[in-house]
């Protein structure tokens, strides 16, 4: 069995944070969080865990490291949260470094392991609380911390300035009018049925996704709008950092932006973690039991449009594809059937990854792990050999991936393991196949 100390990775965010810690400060913060922000759930998890290890095979890290128990969910909980609980916060700064590295980079909070635990222990929750403690100790990996700073400052994750957002939409509208002459991306249209929200990488470097979404909305005749003011980014690295205070601020901006425009619902692009933020965590921190404005993930939205006959394609995608099931909208929302119905509508042949649906392996990018940046890329690559094997076994070249993080994660895996495959958003395929006006 390896140990986390054997694979310590240098990161300025972790190193600088730990440098200012004292045992007294650690003890104080740990106990503050344990007492003030956790409750019976965490205690029950600790006291009822039998250390049976059945969760182990739920973890792609464990599976990818030849069943090394160090990567088992139960071990991760034991070496971090249970240690903090047992010692009542009396641990060293060096231990905090390693706990932070484990919590931020060796657990994607994907919750797959919870399906394998005979008593349903949610290790994703446990590791989230370890992250929360590390955030309160100011020990967070550099790159994801920077992203959370962007969120707090601009209400989006990539330091996109207010004008750059609007300009990106107008640029894509202009581009799209070459193909669809009367297409609009309606800004601030009060009373629209749909508020379409995206994540900041779209205006920053995946602008084709905005173009494609606008084309699909246009062709389907959807009454939609996009806001000109902050709140447009549904993503949330504050959530994964453990900065719940600004997670709440972000979600307020998002929901209030939609409420102000009097829309019926928010449709979000193909992003998994953002769904978790708006549907589960951010909304609840604000005191809402549900989302104050209904949230519809792109998978479900495309499924609706297909059911209503509003998406018309000229032909099916001919090459065989496989499907990546994003954790947050499978285990978090149960969209596995709708995803398949959408993909089967669009594609001639689907070769399933095994296991799949709610048992699919995580992409290893989610939970903010890819956002921890270059220092931890190898952690992700070596930690998801099982996904590479899963992908390779399908024998196909195209992977339908309805999630931004999964895209980044799988493209990295595909390159690292030289799989010769390529990821596609559902929007990529719909746009490619949809009927377009003859000019």
């Amino acid at each position: 069995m390896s140990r986390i100390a054997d694979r310590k990775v240098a990161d300025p965010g972790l190193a600088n944070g730990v440098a200012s810690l004292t045992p007294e400060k650690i003890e104080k913060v740990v106990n503050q969080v344990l007492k003030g922000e956790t409750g019976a759930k965490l205690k029950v998890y600790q006291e009822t865990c039998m250390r049976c290890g059945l969760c182990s095979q739920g973890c792609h890290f464990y599976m990818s490291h030849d069943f090394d128990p160090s990567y088992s969910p139960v071990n991760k909980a034991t070496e971090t949260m249970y240690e903090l609980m047992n010692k009542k916060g009396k641990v060293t700064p060096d231990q905090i470094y390693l706990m932070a590295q484990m919590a931020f980079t060796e657990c994607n909070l994907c919750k797959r392991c919870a399906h394998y635990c005979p008593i349903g222990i949610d290790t994703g929750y446990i590791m989230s609380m370890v992250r929360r403690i590390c955030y309160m100790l100011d020990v967070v990996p550099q790159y994801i911390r920077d992203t959370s700073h962007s969120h707090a400052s601009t209400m989006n994750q990539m330091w996109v300035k207010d004008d750059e957002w609007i300009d990106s939409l107008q640029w894509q509208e202009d581009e799209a009018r070459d193909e669809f002459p009367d297409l609009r991306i309606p800004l601030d249209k009060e009373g629209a049925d749909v508020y379409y929200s995206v994540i900041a990488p779209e205006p920053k470097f995946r602008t084709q996704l905005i173009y494609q979404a606008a084309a699909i909305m246009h062709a389907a005749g959807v009454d939609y709008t996009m806001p000109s003011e902050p709140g447009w980014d549904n993503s949330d690295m504050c959530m994964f950092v453990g900065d719940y205070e600004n997670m709440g601020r972000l979600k307020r901006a998002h929901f209030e932006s939609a409420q102000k425009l009097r829309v019926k619902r928010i449709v979000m692009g193909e992003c998994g973690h953002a769904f978790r933020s708006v549907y589960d965590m951010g909304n609840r921190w604000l005191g809402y039991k549900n989302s104050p404005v209904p949230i519809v993930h792109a998978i479900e939205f495309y499924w609706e449009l297909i059911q209503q006959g509003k998406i018309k394609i000229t032909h099916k995608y001919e090459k065989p594809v496989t499907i990546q099931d994003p954790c947050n909208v499978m285990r978090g929302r149960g969209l596995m059937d709708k995803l398949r119905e959408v993909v089967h509508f669009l594609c001639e042949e689907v070769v399933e990854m095994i296991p799949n649906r709610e048992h699919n392996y995580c992409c290893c990018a989610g939970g903010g792990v890819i956002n921890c940046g270059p220092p931890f890329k190898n952690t992700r690559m070596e930690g998801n050999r099982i996904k590479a094997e899963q992908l390779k076994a399908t024998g196909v070249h195209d992977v339908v991936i309805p999630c931004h993080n999964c895209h980044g994660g799988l493209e990295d895996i595909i390159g690292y393991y030289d799989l010769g495959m390529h990821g596609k958003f559902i929007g990529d395929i719909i746009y490619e196949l949809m009927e377009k006006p003859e000019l």
Partner: protein
Amino acid sequence: MGISKWDWETGQKTVVESLSPIEGHGWQEEPYVSPDGETVAAIVQVDEGVFSVRTNDTVWENTFDKIWGLKFSPDGRLTAICQQDMEWVLVVDGEPMGETTDYIWETKFSEDGSVIATMYKGMERYGVCVDGEPWEELFENVNQYTLSADGAHAAGVAQVQSLGQADIEGFKKGIYTVVVDGVRWPNKYLNVWGPAFDATGEHVAAQVRPSVHAYTIAVDDKPWAATYGQVWEPIFHPKDGSVVAPVRVAGKWGVAKDGNILWEPRYAQCLYLQYGKPGNKLWAVVAPSYGEFTVACDNAAWDVTFPVVTDLVVSPDGTRAAAIGNEDNTNFRIVVDGKAWDGVYDMAWPATFCPGGKNVAAMVEKDGKRIILVNGKPFERSFDMAWPPIFSEDGAKVLIRAIENNSYVRIVADVARF
């Protein structure tokens, strides 16, 4: 033109007979109406890549490559953000206001509409542009700007220190502050949110993050001594200059006044603080328990609760309030003085009190039709489209601006008719 000078003669006027696009126009976008209801306007495509603005049955002479952000000022001027030859300018009633620049957005007005402002970007520097004049000093970034009630002052949050890529330690030293009329506060903070003026426009309060885990309110750059787990938007008392803000302590929300707890933290949420003009009562939207929202006055919550409450409106004398309750964006109710009006709707807009505070009006939507309500009773017919109602100065009449049968109509109705 002041509200008292509008046409308040009871009756209906068809302002525009047909709202169909004018012949030759490629398309016509969604309509906007002037506060007095005399003008309806829309962006129109007059030729491929050529845009203008239709007002009633005429079209601005000037055309542009792109137009967005159509807004009427409170005094009835029509503004639009227009691009020509890759440069942007605010156009007011068809004429450019000020010089063109790289980008403008977020048009705002003084309360009476006499002052018009936008955000401004020129040569990659940011500021506010007031009546066509940008601030003398511009910054690396400015956002969240606001105007004082009389429009004499503008404030925003400025980035006053450059930040290298992923420079998290630099961020923690503070790179943001408030800038008022182009002049920055001396202190820097990790974050600053939502600067707000007092009634005189001489003082500014904002939410600040002085250190990684601390949040508080700064008034004219002086942070309160106390810090909190989180804070929301501060407001000034309309008369005595004190400042209140929602604050989070040990996971519960309350209200602090000038750095001291005013409402003991006991709520699952507390936001949207408001005073009436006399400042006699303090109102807020609160969640007395998880998932149950309502309105509180001086820390006393209404009995009625909803999963979501928005759009708190306080009567001018500060003694009454209205809000919108809903069930996760469905089943909207108008709630006044703690009681929900009878109707349940698909959408609702903020209620409005008449100047005397006696009558309350609101617009709602049901089955695709807009309905105007006064004191909970609907106008005699509903509309394909409408805008929120406006009371006359004496509160005896209400102005309805609506579209029916493809015509834009202006109706002045006696409140007694409801």
